[in-house]
């Protein structure tokens, strides 16, 4: 407890706000679910009457909570993939294959001293990571993860996404300016110049797609791409896709456009003076951004949660209640019998195997099998489970590409970066827009 209270004492005000808000939201959501289960009808009526509010609370909770495992996963992926590409082993101490190392990283960052340098503008310095993190988190609200699984379906979803994503640079600029450090200042100004420049080709490359789609609602854009993979917008907007992905790399401050935190030039850029959880928020925001930009690329150009082929719909309707009393026997005896049956081969095959070791192996196998069966059933029977899986597979493919680029490419120079945006990407995006518009006028939408 002392460690926990000490950690709490070291948190900054925004940190305390977030860590107070998070449990409250979790408790509210869980309470709502429990109330529905216990009281049923009347509560359900109240929920249906205020669906917007309830949906918002649930979405805010899930989005805030989900960013943490996403960031952990991205950090682990980055460490492990880059290690393999460098012919290293990478993290392998904490957890199986080092999977828990990013969790330990998170705890370490939480425990570290929270330091404000002399001369820093402490208010701006404190709130800068919050702005960046909030901007990253708020964009998740409009992402359609699966059919019916999204925070809000705005009809200006894409515009909202770009507006919120662009807010992140304000946090970087605040952090760079308020740190009272010239490296931070250079990093902050670099990020401002870079992100504002790349925002234009990023947005323009999506406009061609918007002409074809006729809507800014991300949910509708995904629905338009259902069917075979040839219906994905990447085949109708190949140039737009390339421009979008390059600009997204720059937006996410990723190699080769990571000038904002160019470690061999300006130490750590805007984050030079940050420590503890304030640095953690910047760090989290970066990795959440990688996920979000990959997700948006998938949503806009690669069909979002759609399978690459028309997925056969084989809803297997299970009705366990129909079994009646035998269900009780199944629930009580099923696990035990399955465990013994699965353990038997191990016990019989090796004379040195202790019976309880065999039982543990059998129980673990039973759990894996059950979870697998339930997942398979969910994948077949529920379109949202299948959709979520397709979405995550595609998104993490792009996260992998981001990590791959980081392992391979050196960094560009600031003048080459700006020249590339204004001399190549912007004209190409305009050309893409013009050709798309002309084609729509000639062929008809």
């Amino acid at each position, binding site marked *: 407890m002392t460690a926990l209270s000490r950690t709490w004492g070291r948190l900054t005000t925004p940190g305390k706000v977030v860590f107070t808000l998070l449990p409250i939201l979790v408790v509210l959501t869980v309470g709502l679910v429990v109330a529905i289960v216990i009281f049923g009808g009347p509560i359900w009526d109240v929920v249906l009457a205020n669906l917007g509010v309830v949906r918002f609370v649930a979405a805010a909770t899930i989005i805030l909570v989900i960013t943490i495992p996403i960031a952990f996963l991205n950090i682990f992926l980055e460490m492990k993939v880059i290690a393999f590409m460098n012919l290293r082993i990478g993290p392998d101490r904490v957890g199986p294959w080092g999977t828990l190392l990013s969790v330990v990283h998170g705890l370490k960052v939480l425990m570290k001293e929270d330091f404000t340098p002399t001369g820093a503008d402490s208010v701006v310095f404190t709130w800068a990571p919050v702005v960046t993190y909030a901007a990253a988190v708020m964009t998740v609200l409009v992402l359609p993860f699966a059919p019916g699984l999204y925070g809000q379906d705005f009809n200006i979803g894409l515009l909202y996404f770009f507006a919120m994503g662009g807010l992140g640079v304000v946090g970087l600029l605040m952090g760079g300016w308020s740190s009272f450090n010239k490296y931070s200042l250079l990093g902050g100004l670099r990020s401002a110049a870079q992100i504002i420049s790349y925002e234009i080709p990023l947005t323009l490359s999506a406009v061609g797609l918007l002409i074809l789609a006729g809507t800014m609602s991300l949910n509708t854009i995904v629905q338009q791409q259902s069917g075979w993979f040839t219906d994905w917008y990447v085949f109708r907007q190949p140039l737009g896709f390339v421009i979008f992905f390059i600009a997204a790399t720059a937006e996410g401050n990723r190699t080769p456009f990571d000038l904002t935190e160019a470690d*061999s030039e300006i130490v750590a850029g805007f984050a030079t003076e940050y420590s503890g959880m304030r640095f953690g928020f910047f760090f989290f925001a970066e990795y959440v951004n990688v996920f979000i930009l990959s997700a948006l690329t998938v949503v806009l150009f690669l069909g979002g949660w759609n399978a690459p082929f028309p997925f056969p719909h084989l809803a297997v309707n299970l009705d366990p209640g129909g079994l009646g009393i035998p269900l009780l026997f199944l629930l009580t005896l099923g696990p035990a019998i399955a465990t013994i049956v699965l353990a038997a081969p191990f016990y019989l095959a090796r004379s040195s195997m202790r019976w309880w070791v065999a039982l543990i192996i059998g129980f673990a196998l039973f759990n894996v099998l059950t979870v697998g069966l339930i997942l398979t059933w969910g994948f077949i029977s529920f379109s949202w489970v299948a959709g979520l899986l397709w979405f995550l597979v595609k998104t993490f493919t792009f996260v992998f590409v981001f990590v791959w680029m980081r392992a391979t490419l050196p960094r560009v120079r600031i003048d080459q970066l700006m020249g590339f945006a204004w001399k190549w990407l912007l004209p190409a995006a305009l050309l893409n827009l013009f050709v798309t518009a002309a084609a729509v006028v000639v062929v008809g939408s």
Partner: protein
Amino acid sequence: MATTPHQHASADDPRVLLDDHMGLYEPIPPYPPRTEREQEFYTLGDGEMFLNAGPHHLATHGVLRVVMKLDGERIVDVDPVLGYLHRGVEKLCENADFHQTIAYMDPLEYVASLFCEWPAVMAYEKLLDVEVPRRAEYIRVLTGELNRVSSHLLAMGFHALDLGGITPILYSFIERDEIVEMLAAITGQRMLFNYFRIGGVNGDLNHDFMSRLGDWMSRAGQQVAANAALLNENEIFVQRNRGVGTMDRVTAIKHCWTGPNLRASGVPFDLRRAHPYSVYPELDFDIPTRAEGDSLARYLLRIDEVKQSLRIIDQCLHQMPDGPVMAKLPRLLRPRPGRAFAAIEGPRGEYGIYAVSDGTDQPFRFRIHDPSFLHLQSFTTLAPGGLIADWMTLNASLDPIMGGIDK
């Protein structure tokens, strides 16, 4: 809340208004300017600022401190500040036995240690008129060229690392690690070998070394070419290097450049051919040069030199004679009074040792000529006009080693 400066006399008090004491945080020396150059450098123009990089900056290859005068991202002027690694090696050597001085040579060039031992033992051998056994000379060339390869590989890897590519350094280290391991098999050390002796080397080649070397030589050329292909055809890398820090041949000669940096400016000067020493006249190898003189040329030239070094190693292995590896010498060396200068071609240029003997067992005067120091002086002419990122490229391509610069 806000306090006025006169309430707190001490400038160390953190409550003092920072606006009035901004100078405390600037890299300006606390004394008045001593030279016109200092006066000019520490006077800021309109819209300019100082940026202090080092001595613990990530891209300074040691403890180099560079004060940059910036106009936005563009460098107006730079001032390298030396001395953070100064040990007074020359004076230490004047108070040490001739044998002991060889151990002081290693940390001068901590990436390729053999190249600082070599001129020292050569100078003493000139003072003593010692004939070095031919097998010892071949072993010196063999181990020296191996060390040159390891040094160039490290330079190539760090070049990429300074430019933001994190993978090439690790690929380089695989080969470098193999080389230092095989050198450790005969010298007992991975980094500071202390292997050369006056009149020979400290031990013959052993089985461990030869088997490792045979394994490595069978794949070295391919590996180096494969690692180089990762960067040489990378458009970002080429764009970052081309035309950065361009040195023409006249200025390079005026600045006393030597080694790969000079040859990248189009001057085919290599001490192994210009002033042959050891058994180099018996070996067949080329002196690669490049005309451009920019960072890319310096980088590519190192790859060419690695290939030539592999040729030399191959020939050494084939021509290595049998025989002793040490000349017969008394334990206590008292050379005749006199002076000697010996210079060799190292991975960074010409390493020279000037030793004066007064007849005792210690050098009377001892001076070290280090190429990195002369390359570093060109910072003030090459860096201004470029961006901050160009300075990293320049530093990586000149490849200075602070051990020799600060002595």
